[in-house]
């Protein structure tokens, strides 16, 4: 029973990792809390649902979500943050600005969906259950964990093993110095926002598939979870957010399975406070400025 819940927690944690990584990526490079991230996640689920409801394959829906959410995230950066950065008042201003952007996106989604709760058609994903060493896992769960693992690995390689990632880390480390090696920081920021939005979009699709419930406010709890995960993992740390997301997922499923209902969030936040008392920069954060500056 515990092993089964841990497995379920790992699968959910993988999806949380996708969502939180986009959030922490933006924080790592710009020190901005993008509170419109939850709304972008919601759009991801709706876009895929729309594509699938047209009779097109799910993979096409996921691709469409990646493109739409990536572009939407770039638009949020352009409208909410790019001007603020020039004033040097981005940290607080960006929080307010991104809350506004999130509300606008949610309202548009609410209008377009008539506040309905939507579901992917039943035949979107084949229902198959596998048993292994006494554990049950569905094909959808395998797909979720595969998607999450692939994207987290791809992000890690992109950031730490490619010249593109080197440019991102250079801008994070010292924006002024980066301009002297022919890097356009504005273009780099836009690219990071695209990646961040794309990850949120995929997470939205996977959550929509897993819980068979797509509605305009579905991103809100995930935004709160992302906060917990990125603080737990160390602000801006990719590896930290990934591990923290998996721990968070397991902690959540275990508390849901074994404790009275309604205690889940209390337990999770209590654990967060206790961890922060011992490690104020999170489990893996070396400094509050963000470990995206480091090697991992």
């Amino acid at each position, binding site marked *: 029973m515990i092993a089964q819940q841990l497995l379920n927690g790992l699968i959910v944690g993988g999806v949380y990792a996708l969502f939180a990584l986009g959030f922490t990526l933006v924080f790592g490079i710009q020190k901005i809390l993008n509170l419109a991230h939850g709304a972008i996640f919601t759009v991801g689920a709706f876009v895929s649902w729309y594509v699938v409801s047209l009779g097109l394959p799910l993979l096409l829906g996921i691709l469409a979500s990646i493109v739409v959410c990536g572009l939407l995230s770039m638009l949020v950066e352009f409208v909410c943050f790019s001007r603020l950065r020039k004033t040097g008042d981005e940290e607080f201003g960006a929080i307010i600005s991104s809350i506004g952007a999130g509300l606008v996106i949610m309202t548009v989604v609410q209008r377009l969906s008539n506040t309905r709760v939507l579901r992917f058609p039943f035949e979107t994903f084949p229902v198959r259950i596998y048993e292994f060493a006494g554990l049950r896992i569905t094909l959808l769960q395998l797909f979720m964990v595969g998607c999450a693992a692939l994207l987290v690995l791809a992000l890690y390689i992109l950031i730490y093993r490619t010249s593109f990632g*080197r*440019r991102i*880390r250079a801008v*994070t480390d010292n924006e002024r110095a*980066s301009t*002297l*090696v022919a890097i*356009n920081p504005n273009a780099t920021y836009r690219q990071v926002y695209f990646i961040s939005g794309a990850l949120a979009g995929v997470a939205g699709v996977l959550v929509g598939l897993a819980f068979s419930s797509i509605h305009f406010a579905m991103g809100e709890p995930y935004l709160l979870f992302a906060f917990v995960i990125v603080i737990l993992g160390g602000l801006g740390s990719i590896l930290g957010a990934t591990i923290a997301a998996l721990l968070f997922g397991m902690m959540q499923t275990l508390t849901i399975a074994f404790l009275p209902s309604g205690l889940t969030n209390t337990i999770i936040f209590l654990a967060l406070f206790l961890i922060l008392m011992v490690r104020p920069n999170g489990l893996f954060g070396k400094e509050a400025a963000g470990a995206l500056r480091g*090697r991992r």
Partner: protein
Amino acid sequence: MLLEVRDLAVNYSGIQAVRGVSLDIAEGEMVALIGANGAGKSSLINALSGVVRAASGTVTFEGAEIQRMSPWSISARGLIQVPEGRLVFSALSVEENLLLGATAAKGRKAQFGLAEVYDLFPILKERRNQLAGSLSGGQQQMLAIGRGLMSGPRLLLLDEPSLGLAPVIVSQVFRALMELRAQGLTTLLVEQNANLALSVSDRAYMMEQGRIVHQGPSRQMAEDPDIIALYMGQTA
């Protein structure tokens, strides 16, 4: 001329840091820009690299006016600044810093690759996997110059390479500059230490209060009694 600067002015909140400066740099020259602290040398070099916007005047680099361009467009053209205070990417490794320089080369034939930079500064090869932020000041200066060289510079702007370094490290850095001069790299060397700057350069400009007040061959300037009295005595 590789670089032509005409009547360049730079203002900071109403204060004129650079006042109508004109200078030229030909291909293959090493030109020194000397002057006391606050003379406007760094403001001038920052205006050339696009880090600060010139209030008036023109900067022509390889026939194109660049004074309104962004710093990344200017560095992409091969006008590479090695800034004062080194500004290395402290959380990236030494080799990653150098490779970032290579990405700025943008298809220009780079005279310096990793091997050449490591030959020039062997300590960087030893420390290639170390974080740049953990290097000493002198090693960071070598890294900043190495990164500039990897960028395939058509013109290298070196801002105060001796600043804050121990004399033994300064002589190492300047030995490397002599080697670069011998290889024909076009360089504008900004230095407070007039003795050193005049000893390695072909020509020199001297700035005072935002203006060019002397110019000529470095050897000739090094023997000018006024310059000796004003600057060289202090820096010997």
